[in-house]
């Protein structure tokens, strides 16, 4: 046999096993398979792990790792500082190589961790309950829209145009499947907040829900209470959050949100080119049986000892099949673990400290950049750690960023890519991972380029 480190069978064992089965060859085990291949797959020969690592390390080096870059770009994925303990603990095989906790008695590690994760998310969002996670923020948003349509039995999904553009795209895809209508609601060109007049116009008796970012894609913090007041009683308000922002911003659960979803990546997860993400999903207690995804509950064992188990599984596809609340049959437990360890290390004070640093740095940068000639503000609504500026110069944002890259700076995102009418507009982001010196350097460099 070839020397494969993962397949233990010797020739002798294979022969013994075939004899036990009562066949003469491996081929006989495939007798019922038509159209069998008569040649090898056209893929490379096996590798050893050392040559493979060398090869793929080389491939990885064709990428610019942002490890040593100052990153001023967010837009859905954020570079934060991640304590060493997060990855070190999470990479334990007992977490990494376990499956869905179907056998609760030998999955208490996973189950308790997810129960604690659910608790932390309810704390952050101010909602009654949270599930044990979804794929990513975008698909969690789409699932929330489907849930709202199920609850209200209505077909119109209103979505703020200031929600992350890729989330809107995913929402449209899911709603095409579910035969729901996606109706955009404008943002105010002055403040960047939701346009209340447009909202009033778009609301109808068919409205199931309104979805908006909190903060929105431009970094602006929406006034949820005022928005909720404009919605008819039965229309559900879905807030798409950044969990770090909730270290400072009021919990959406206190402001009238019915479902809170979001991308949990900023909580201790590496950027990984945007995947895997961590879909957050929280809602009100009364909707618990309408909620998609895994839920972990606390209970007692035969001896009266506290334990944890997956609950309300009758909502899920493996029992209810086509009548399930969603087809989702997994979650991103591993990413939830990274987030849980992160939140445990940061704690109540840490999450606030991080949020405060993010906010202060971005506002400091904002003021500093506005002093540069040719740079002007775009919106005047309150923002958290992202903001939009217009750069009216002969250089495009791409050209500016090109120069920044040479200095190991990932500059702001050019918004023209998503909003064709926002020429020369750039979305800046500042987290605690950029030093004050980096900010000064960026401002100086920008002035120099312009």
């Amino acid at each position, binding site marked *: 046999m070839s020397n494969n480190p993962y397949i233990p069978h010797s020739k002798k064992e294979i022969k013994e096993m075939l004899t036990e089965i009562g066949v003469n060859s491996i081929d006989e085990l495939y007798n019922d398979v038509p159209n069998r291949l008569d040649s090898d797959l056209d893929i490379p020969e096996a590798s050893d792990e050392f040559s493979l690592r060398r090869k793929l390390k080389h491939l990885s080096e064709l990428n610019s790792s942002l490890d040593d870059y100052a990153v001023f770009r967010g837009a859905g994925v954020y570079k934060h500082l991640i304590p060493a303990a997060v990855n070190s603990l999470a990479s334990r095989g007992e977490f990494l190589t376990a499956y869905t906790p179907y056998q609760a008695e030998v999955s208490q590690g996973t189950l308790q961790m997810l129960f604690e994760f659910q608790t932390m998310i309810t704390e952050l969002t101010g909602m009654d309950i949270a599930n044990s996670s979804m794929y990513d923020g975008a698909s969690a948003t789409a699932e929330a829209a489907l849930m709202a349509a199920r609850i209200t039995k209505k077909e119109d999904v209103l979505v703020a145009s200031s929600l992350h553009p890729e989330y809107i795209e995913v929402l449209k895809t899911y709603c095409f499947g579910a035969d729901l209508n996606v109706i955009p609601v404008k943002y105010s060109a002055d403040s960047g907040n939701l346009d209340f007049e447009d909202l009033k116009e778009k609301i109808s008796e068919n409205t199931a829900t309104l979805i908006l970012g909190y903060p929105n894609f431009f970094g602006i913090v929406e006034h949820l209470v005022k928005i909720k007041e404009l919605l008819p009683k039965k229309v559900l308000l879905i807030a798409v959050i950044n969990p770090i922002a909730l270290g400072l911003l009021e919990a959406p659960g206190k402001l009238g949100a019915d479902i809170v979803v979001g991308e949990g990546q900023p909580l201790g997860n590496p950027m990984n*080119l945007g995947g895997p993400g961590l879909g957050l999903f929280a809602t009100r207690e009364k909707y618990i049986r309408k909620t998609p995804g895994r839920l972990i*509950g606390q209970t007692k064992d035969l001896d009266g000892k506290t334990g944890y188990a997956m609950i309300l599984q009758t909502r899920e596809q493996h029992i209810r099949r086509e009548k399930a609340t969603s087809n989702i049959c997994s979650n991103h437990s591993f990413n939830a673990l990274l987030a849980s360890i992160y939140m445990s290390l940061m704690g109540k004070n840490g999450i606030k400290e991080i949020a405060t640093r993010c906010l202060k740095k971005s506002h400091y940068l904002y003021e500093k950049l506005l002093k540069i000639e040719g740079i002007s503000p775009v919106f005047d609504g309150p923002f958290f750690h992202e903001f939009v500026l217009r750069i009216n110069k002969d250089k495009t944002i791409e050209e500016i960023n090109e120069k920044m890259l040479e200095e190991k700076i990932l500059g702001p995102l050019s918004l023209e890519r998503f909003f064709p009418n926002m020429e020369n507009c750039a979305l800046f982001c500042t987290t605690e991972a950029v030093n004050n010196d980096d900010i000064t350097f960026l401002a100086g460099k920008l002035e120099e380029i312009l």
Partner: protein
Amino acid sequence: MTIFEKSRKNRTGYSLPDEDSLEVQIEKAIPEELLRSKDPSLPESSETEVVRHYNNLSKKNFSVDSGFYPLGSCTMKYNPRINESIASLPGFTELHPYQPEKTFKGALELMYDLKKLLSEITGMKSFTLQPAAGAHGELTGMLIIKKYFRSKGEKRNKVIIPDSAHGTNPASAKMVGFDVVEIKSNDNGIVDLEDLKKQIDEDVAGIMLTNPNTLGLFEKDICKITEIAHEKGALMYYDGANLNAIMGKVKPGDMGFDIIHLNLHKTFSTPHGMGGPGSGPVGVAEFLKDYLPVPIVDLDNEKGYYLKWNLNNSIGRVRSFFGNFNVLVKAYSYILMMGKDGLRLASEMAVLNANYLRKKLSTMIPTAFPGICKHEAVFDGSVLVDDYNVKTIDLAKKLLDYNVHPPTIYFPLIVNEALMIEPSETESKENIDNYISIIKEILVEARNDPEKLKKAPYTTPVRRLDEVTASRSPVVSYRQETEG
């Protein structure tokens, strides 16, 4: 004890760079009514305590790294460490999805090459790597089918699914608005062709099949089935949950399938991570390639590897960014490590292991259907009820006391007291022999004292849990009495 109960006021487990505080007033930046009125009660612990807490939690988990984990239809094969080592290279982890394309050419090359490899293994023309999991892949596939018939102006509203299928199949079809039509399995555990012919008509958009099916049996009439489907204009969807039996032996494309999803976390050894993240790439035949989600990674003579955004009939995005990239790296690493011979060997040894286990165990518990199986074997546990006065669940729970993992139980739904066992190729003959001996021992125990077995397990971190109360009055978060 939960981490919340261990919490002590003002303890922290982090340290941040010591910087001058910037002169920004939060209250000026954000109106007061938008600021938090009460801090979130996250636990407050030192790093020492956090490390101990999670370390101790990990010890309460059974995993592939702990022992034999023959969970049917889940392909719990060993997860090679080299995959982890490669996927954690900073050139793969520290990438922002919106950094300029030219600064992640290596990642693009990896994704392009992975697509090509998956195409070669499955015989499909083109792949999307965007779906995050198997069920997500199914959803993507169903959306493609819906869009395809919409664009042809056909209103097909039904999808045919066998009664042995995974629950995700009907759930995915329903999410896209299709009505589900169930077809029966025949006495040999495969699709009943006569029932299929009766059910199929011009309203059928597609047939979802798993092959080998969830009974571990190969649909030997597969070419006939695809012919029947295609004659009526319906598309064939392949649920790739069980690809582990056929790599390098036969390609779904050659069986006549039009759309396929794969589970990289099963067949391609990426770790299950307690339930996710997985990855569910979707492959399609030539005529459907413009329906895939965007963006697609492509190769151009001048541009090199690049993201292609314009596909005429694309269903749009099914998630943000480019898929579970970190998982893709691990699967890519696995395929290259195994090579063409390794992948075929994996399939062959998976099938050998399953048949060996089937043969040996069937002297105690009969198989649900006769004949050679593929990567997994399904047993009818009625004998446990009839001869031993216990149930499949009792046997499963007792296995936990022996530090091995039970099979998938009570699935497929069409088998009484079902036990579905998938050893996978990474397990040795003696591990299987040991498992058989344990079951033998348990059956003796069942014979002697069935009541005792009904209360197993006895040695696990907790014993059987009261799921009734947990579902009647759900407690889904830790309620903190006072400020922690």
